[in-house]
């Protein structure tokens, strides 16, 4: 494998892995804060037990998100030094601000929350979990703003051999960012909602079957209801934000969307392809509703792969309306040098099959999760509790996994669909690679990261399952003897 392929595999593996934990961290911290708020308001112990129960699961997940996140910040410089040098003037600021604003907030206040149960007043303790969850949400704003800039590099000019910032406001109001962020954050709530609903439903069904205490049933049912409703409502908003995000990408990344639909020729009557096994080749394709894509995109013409390729050969990278961003226009001459010096042409179209299928799997699996939430609400309506059977067990195992898979395909679609560019329409991915890092080094780190991440995943899932089986904790007030005792030994 070539050095850039190995580096891309490493980035892909570490990023997808990191993002298994991130959405749960973001949304479950908020839901935990909501539960604790409900406890503060009502004094109902059911909410306190749910807070502690999901708080513990949240922390098991949070640790993994934190440690795999450090890798992300270092990896840009380690594997993609020339990308970092090229974009640092714009891309570095959100990363620095993410650490300064978000990471300090979440880590400090989460530390206060974990250890503060008996040390802080009830109100202050509630504030700490809210500040920690606000920190996680803020971090998503900055990193998505940075990613959206890679998809659509606005507010920049080509100067001093690199991209330089001209308009910070444009970076923060990047249309891709304005839709990608709500799409990502609502998908995070889908993830946490599905997790909470499935875990609580497991507890509910198990408690009922064993004839457990009714207080447990009441608390679990609240968890199922909250989780399932969050899943459904957030799911609807994920769909609603996905549509304008798609429309935006049609304008900013026409070749990504042409590949996402495996649309080979420009058409004023483009159908929706349900499946496609042949990519750019003929056949192997089921088409529905001619003209559907034109309607969905809101455009008279849906651009096709072949036409985009011809267009790139004559005019360079163009947005859907035929214009270019300043950075794309200004870098065009330098980009020609890249192709001349390397002697190979750039194919402006990403891998069609990966883009096509990741796009569909994201949508399909995400929708399946929403249906799962609806089904769970139906099964547990009123005071009904389904009898345990294999089908329900399988469903409860699948429900929290579905959004994770959908999220992963979403990122694979976003990032693979951006190829061959590391900065869309500007810098080819290959040019971003670190020239001074040997293939052996990257192989070594790729293998060790993969093994380490695999081992940690097994440990993490086992711990999660252990605490899910243990179930809701009992809450008995702590009696304190001396000055130091109140500090709970959380570790």
């Amino acid at each position, binding site marked *: 494998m070539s050095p850039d392929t190995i580096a891309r595999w490493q980035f892909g593996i570490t990023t997808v892995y990191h993002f298994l934990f991130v959405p749960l961290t973001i949304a479950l911290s908020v839901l935990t804060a909501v539960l604790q708020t409900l406890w503060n308001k009502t004094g109902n112990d059911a909410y306190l037990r749910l807070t502690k129960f999901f708080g513990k699961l949240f922390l098991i997940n949070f640790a993994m998100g934190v440690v795999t996140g450090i890798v992300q910040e270092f990896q*840009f*410089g*380690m594997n993609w*030094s020339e990308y970092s040098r090229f974009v640092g003037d714009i891309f570095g600021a959100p990363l620095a601000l993410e650490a300064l604003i978000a990471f*300090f907030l979440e*880590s400090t206040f989460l530390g206060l929350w974990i250890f503060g149960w008996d040390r*802080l007043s009830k109100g202050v303790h509630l504030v700490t979990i809210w500040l920690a969850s606000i920190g996680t949400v803020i971090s998503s704003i900055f990193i998505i703003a940075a990613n959206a800039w890679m998809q659509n590099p606005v507010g920049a000019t080509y*100067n001093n051999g690199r991209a330089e910032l001209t308009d910070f406001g444009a970076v923060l109001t990047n249309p891709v960012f304005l839709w990608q962020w709500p799409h990502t954050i609502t998908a995070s709530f889908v993830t946490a909602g599905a997790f909470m609903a499935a875990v609580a439903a497991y507890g509910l069904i198990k408690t009922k079957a064993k004839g457990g205490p009714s207080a447990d049933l009441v608390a679990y049912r609240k968890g199922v209801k909250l989780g399932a409703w969050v899943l459904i409502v957030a799911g609807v908003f994920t769909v609603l934000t996905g549509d304008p995000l798609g429309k935006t990408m049609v304008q900013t990344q026409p070749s990504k969307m042409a590949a996402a639909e495996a649309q080979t020729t420009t058409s004023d009557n483009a159908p929706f392809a349900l499946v496609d096994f042949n990519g750019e080749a003929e056949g192997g394709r089921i088409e529905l509703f001619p003209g559907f894509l034109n309607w969905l995109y809101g455009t008279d013409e849906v651009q096709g792969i072949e036409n985009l390729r011809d267009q790139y050969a004559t005019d360079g990278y163009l947005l859907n309306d035929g214009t270019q961003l300043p950075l794309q226009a200004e870098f065009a001459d330098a980009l020609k040098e890249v192709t001349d010096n390397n002697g190979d042409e750039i194919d402006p179209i990403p891998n069609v099959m990966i883009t096509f299928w990741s796009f569909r799997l994201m949508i399909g699996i995400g929708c399946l999760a929403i249906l799962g939430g609806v089904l769970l609400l139906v099964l547990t309506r009123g005071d009904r509790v389904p009898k345990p059977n294999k089908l329900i067990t399988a469903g409860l195992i699948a429900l929290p996994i579905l959004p994770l898979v959908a999220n992963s395909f979403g990122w694979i679609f976003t990032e693979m669909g951006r190829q061959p560019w590391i900065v869309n329409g500007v810098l080819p991915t290959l040019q971003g690679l670190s020239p001074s890092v040997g293939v052996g080094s990257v192989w*070594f780190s790729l293998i060790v990261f993969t093994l380490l991440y695999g081992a940690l995943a097994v440990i993490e899932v086992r*711990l999660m399952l252990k605490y899910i089986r243990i179930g809701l904790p009992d809450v008995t007030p702590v009696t304190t003897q001396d000055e130091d005792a109140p500090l709970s030994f959380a570790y």
Partner: protein
Amino acid sequence: MTFQHVLPLLDVPLHSPTVLQVLWLILIAVLWIGFFFLEGFDFGVGMLLPFLGKNDKERRLIVNTIGPHWDGNEVWLLTAGGAMFAAFPGWYATLFSGLYLPLFLVLVGLILRGVAFEYRGKNDDLAWRKRWDWAAAIGSFLPTLVLGVGFANFLIGLKVAPHELAFGDTTVPLFAGTFWGLFSPFALLGGLLFVALFATHGAFFIALKTHGVIHERAEAWGSKIVLAALVLLLAVVIWGNLHKELPGQLDALRVVAWITGVVAIAGLACAWFMNKKGRDGWAFIGTAISIVMLIVMYFAHFYPGLGFDNSLALDTPLDLTTASSSPKTLQIMTICACCLVPVVLAYQVWSYWIYRKRLSTANIPDDAASAQEERQGVSA
């Protein structure tokens, strides 16, 4: 306005950095200082964990001294890295790619220790906890050693050479050394110094935060390690400051490096003395001063070359003017930093204030792991 206008005393030989470029070098120094001062003791606590704690309850106590803080401390590193990326992309790009394997080791260490702290208490099984305690120790030792070797190398100057890109008419400076070339005798000394200094800092922190048997043991261990740290510090300060001048370095800053180096030694000597007197707070302040001053000394050598040796790239040097972001980005970042850093400092200090009390094993409830250990003790 250039730096020369502000400080006419300094004769700037290469390019003239702007005020903001100098300010961001100082700010990045502050972030690294904050990181080593705070994470320094929790690296130390991690390294000492399997040695200071003779049974599970004791080790649990030791982990809980840094429990609420270690994650927040680590963010100083992320912020320092992010600030280097944002303010000096050239520095970040050349450094992080040049030191690929060392930074990989730092990452593996940070992953291990982070998970270890969070997961050790999640099972009441003695073997499980012992494994995580070692993971925490190794995960604390590895980044400490590597960063120590790294900073010593920056003082010597990482060799960079120009490299042509496939586009543009300029070259980029890339690391021109090898992985094994990083382990010069001086660099190894620098690595060992970080290990000894942070272990001392950690021991004095544990002494300050506990009472009972762990308190005494931490004081005793600290009183021994501090001597090793003192010898290593003396060697690094003298050897480092006698090192040949890198292109563009300022005499005035070399004087600063000597002074801060001596203050670092004095701080550590004071820590040793105060530890003997049983004054835990002052001993901790001593190691803190020593760490802060050592990092200032290092950074005094990083002007203007940012820890790079440009002798192979004199026409296209990598320094704080060529590595820097545009004035516009630096302005935006400066405004954000001025507004936010005080807020961050305020709530971090508050979190330490909340958990200022000393801990003792007497407060730790029994659990299955401690019971398991007692049974084993009885049977043995």
